[in-house]
């Protein structure tokens, strides 16, 4: 491999990293619901990716590799912030924001609030599958757990979302009007 090939690979890597920034940010935001924390996580993940670019063996798996780094940064963040709490047990509640208060009926706000109620581990799996369209095997690699755990976390996450979003929907909650009296007309 000559120098030119190395240079081209490095340039391509940087370009792909730049393109992935939006996706990393969206994922980080879905996990944290905090724009500034998301930005910090993405910066940290990209810095680590640049530093350890040589570890990426298969360029086609770059996104999975980047998401793994982001997941590690996310874990590290909680280790730093709450060293004695198990990450998987944390229920990260959505904070009240003016946006939430004024747009509670909007679907985006409702869904974000429902996702915000999920335990972090479930939220991670759900967003990696739903937002990034990753396979269960890839998600298992990223979050470093067996595929069965991924499936059960995803299943629990969607069940909780269903309770928050679908079971309370107007279509299901609205009962038919009760008639006080019925007169039979022959």
């Amino acid at each position, binding site marked *: 491999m000559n120098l030119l090939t190395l240079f081209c690979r490095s340039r391509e890597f940087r370009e792909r990293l730049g393109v992935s920034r939006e996706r990393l*940010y*969206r994922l980080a*935001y*879905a996990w944290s619901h905090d*724009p*500034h924390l*998301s*930005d910090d996580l993405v910066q940290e993940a990209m810095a680590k990716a640049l530093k350890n670019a040589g570890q990426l063996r298969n360029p086609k798996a770059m996104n999975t590799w980047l998401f793994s780094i982001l997941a590690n940064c996310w874990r590290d963040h909680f280790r730093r912030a709450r060293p004695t709490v198990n990450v998987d047990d944390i229920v990260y509640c959505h904070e009240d924001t003016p*946006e939430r208060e004024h747009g509670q009926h909007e*679907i*985006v706000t409702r*869904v*974000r609030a429902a*996702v915000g109620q999920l335990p972090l581990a479930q939220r991670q799996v*759900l*967003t990696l*599958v*739903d*937002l990034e369209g990753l*396979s*269960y095997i890839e998600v298992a690699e990223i979050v470093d757990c067996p595929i069965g755990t991924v*499936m*059960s976390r*995803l*299943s629990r996450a*969607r*069940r909780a*979302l*269903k309770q928050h*979003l*679908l079971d309370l929907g107007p279509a299901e909650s609205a009962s038919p009007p009760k008639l006080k009296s019925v007169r039979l007309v022959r």
Partner: protein
Amino acid sequence: MKQPDDDIPGGVSEETLNAFVDDQLSAGERGDVFEAINRNRRLTERACELTHLRGMVQLAYRDCPKPKHLQPAPRHGNLLKGVAAAALLALGALLGWVVHPGPGGPGVLNETALASIARHDGSFLVSRVGAPVPAHGVRHVLLHLTSSNPQQMELALNRVQELMGLFPRDQLQVEVVTNAGGVNLLRANVSPYKARVEELMRKYPNLTFLACSNTVANLKRELGPGRVDLIPNTRVGPTAIHEIITRLQEGWIYIKV
């Protein structure tokens, strides 16, 4: 395939149904789930719910709020457009204000001279800003011509002549400002009224003709420098709008043809 849960009908576990919706099953497993779905309507509903939930999650994070430094910076063009719009608004407000009829009085030049110039057919628009023009002393009048229509040109020259007849030369200063098509009035090889303009210039030393420098520059760029000859003694001043605003601020009367 996982063992079915109690709350999931059709002998399909919740995890398997999720994997089916996420396209994570092998061909054989997918076939089994399809068969179960065909047999059980409730299972179809659950699969639809899961797909629906996935769509809702995707929608919820399509546009995430970002810190300020990550938001796209406003384009420079928008800023320029804003400045241009503000300038136009200011100009409109200025002209609207000067068009508004002010209080008249015995010492003000607006009953006779301007009434005779401003025709009822709306061919002229008369405006004034600044202090009232005294009945005695020098009156300053600016005529603004923008049209290349010969009838408009003739009308403007007629009004200049009428105006000159109303006041003594030492009490009147008239300036005809042309831009756009109106500059044709002052182009030596194009003007249909070249002789009349020259005669007016010769006859009235208190009359000046001014061509907008922007329009002249554009003409030179389009036709070539040698093909834009103006009638001698024509002034090529600043831009027409600059001249008009300056004159209005000095208290001149503005008449738009």
